[in-house]
């Protein structure tokens, strides 16, 4: 168990450190890289508690897709690097009271949520089933997700679809004067449409614009 706990502490230390660095680092691109490091260490922690499916999905979805988009946005926006030292502008900033207010509210909300946390009475009996059972956790997640929670699952799928369509509709602009390639019109072009034989009289030429 020693090696296990050593790795656990390494991963959790890196996770917390990089989470702090996300907010503290001055370069926004560095923040995103720390966020990615955070995602990776958290998926390592998932794997350590035996939830290998969740860990891998975390890697594929968050690191492989979401963080790439983050990185793109941050790189493209080219946010001016903050030259001032951290903490140096505390006295002059007018946003500090608002920030303090919001963090106090979130802090008390967390206290309320965690303080009122109760496990459902049948959790203990369920816990003895899954971790050491014969079936892998991919199977057990599938068994639950596609039977008991199928309606919620489908509903979240619908919400994502609506969000996706909404985002496309909001950002889609039809530009005029754009040349697009149409395979169909390319293939269906006949000789008669494009080539014409003409008898050209000497010294008169032919009017090609007609």
């Amino acid at each position: 168990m020693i090696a296990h706990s050593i790795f656990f502490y390494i991963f959790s230390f890196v996770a917390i450190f990089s989470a702090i660095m996300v907010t503290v680092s001055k370069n926004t691109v560095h923040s995103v890289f720390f966020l990615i490091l955070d995602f990776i260490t958290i998926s390592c922690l998932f794997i350590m508690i035996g939830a290998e499916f969740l860990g891998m999905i975390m890697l594929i979805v968050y690191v492989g897709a979401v963080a790439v988009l983050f990185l793109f946005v941050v790189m493209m926006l080219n946010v001016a690097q903050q030259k001032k030292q951290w903490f140096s502008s505390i006295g002059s900033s007018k946003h500090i009271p608002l920030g303090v207010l919001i963090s106090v509210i979130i802090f008390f909300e967390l206290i309320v949520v965690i303080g009122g946390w109760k496990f459902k009475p049948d959790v203990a009996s369920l816990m003895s089933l899954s971790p050491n059972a014969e079936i892998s956790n991919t199977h057990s997640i599938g068994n639950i997700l596609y039977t008991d929670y199928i309606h919620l699952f489908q509903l979240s799928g619908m919400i994502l679809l609506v969000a996706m369509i909404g985002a496309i509709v909001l950002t889609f602009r039809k530009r005029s004067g754009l040349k697009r390639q149409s395979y169909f019109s390319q293939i269906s072009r006949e000789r008669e449409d494009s080539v014409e034989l003409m008898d050209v009289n000497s010294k008169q030429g032919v009017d090609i614009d007609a």
Partner: protein
Amino acid sequence: MFDYLNIIFLETYKILFLLVPVLTAVAMIVWLDRRVWAFVQKRRGPNVVGPFGLFQSLADALKYLFKEIIIPASANKIIFILAPIVTMTLALIAWAVIPFSENFVIADINVGILYLFAVSSLGVYGIIMGGWASNSKYPFLGSIRSAAQMVSYEVSIGIIIINVLLCVGSLNLTDIVLAQKNLWFIIPLFPMFVIFFISALAETNRPPFDLPEAEAELVAGYQTEYSGMMYAMFWLGEYANILLMCALGSILFLGGWLAPIEVFPFNFIPDFVWLIFKILFLFILFSLVKAIVPRYRYDQLMKLGWKIFLPMSLFWVVITASYLFYFNLLPGN
């Protein structure tokens, strides 16, 4: 405590036993690529260093090793140096789950295929980091192209993997190979194999989809500012990724280490040799495509990925699932 040390030594030994051949193979495969490419175009290719030019890659590696590493003054140094390391590391750690025979695999994990998919989707970071940290226009444009391309084609590769998983009922790579004992998946899922092959070309930035480093437009894309050993590491990582994709293709569709027919001369050949044969076969197809097909335009590439491959593979998921369900062939029943 000694138990841990023992395990660590054993695992290190196993990893070296796999990685040294893989790295050698990557060097050889570069030579093979150039030879095949040359033969298609009626040239000789590298044939001077060593027998048949076999040591050409070695000579190239030595050359890269002794060249100066130049880091641009305005580059972000840490990320600039990290980028080739990330590319190389990700290309190599993926080999941990590739089964070379029923018992020879370093990490026989439950979610092997997801691991491979995750590692290959992380591969895009080496390119983005390299392109951004160079602090130069061409590398940045190249890395943006490459990232968009890899993210798009990953989607269709993921759905193709779902097709295979429907027939297997397990995410373990060994199980996937064993499920093909009677019938390789290339036969029932042939269209998926074709789409997988083309998507793998795009995923590894191989011609005809090598737009990230289209030399006519972008100098060399994200590698423009790299020199010496760092460039060589990008290069090695790229070829290790290609080999990995070939290995994934042969495991998913060509029956992994299984012999085509279980009769005397075939089953006498050891398992890992079959896998190597299949990887080489796919790789030679890769290099033939490189020699034959001209480069795609970027909008055509995106159109192919999103408007043709994605609907096709989704449609095939429906067909596979309905077929298996109707004939009661679903695994796990």
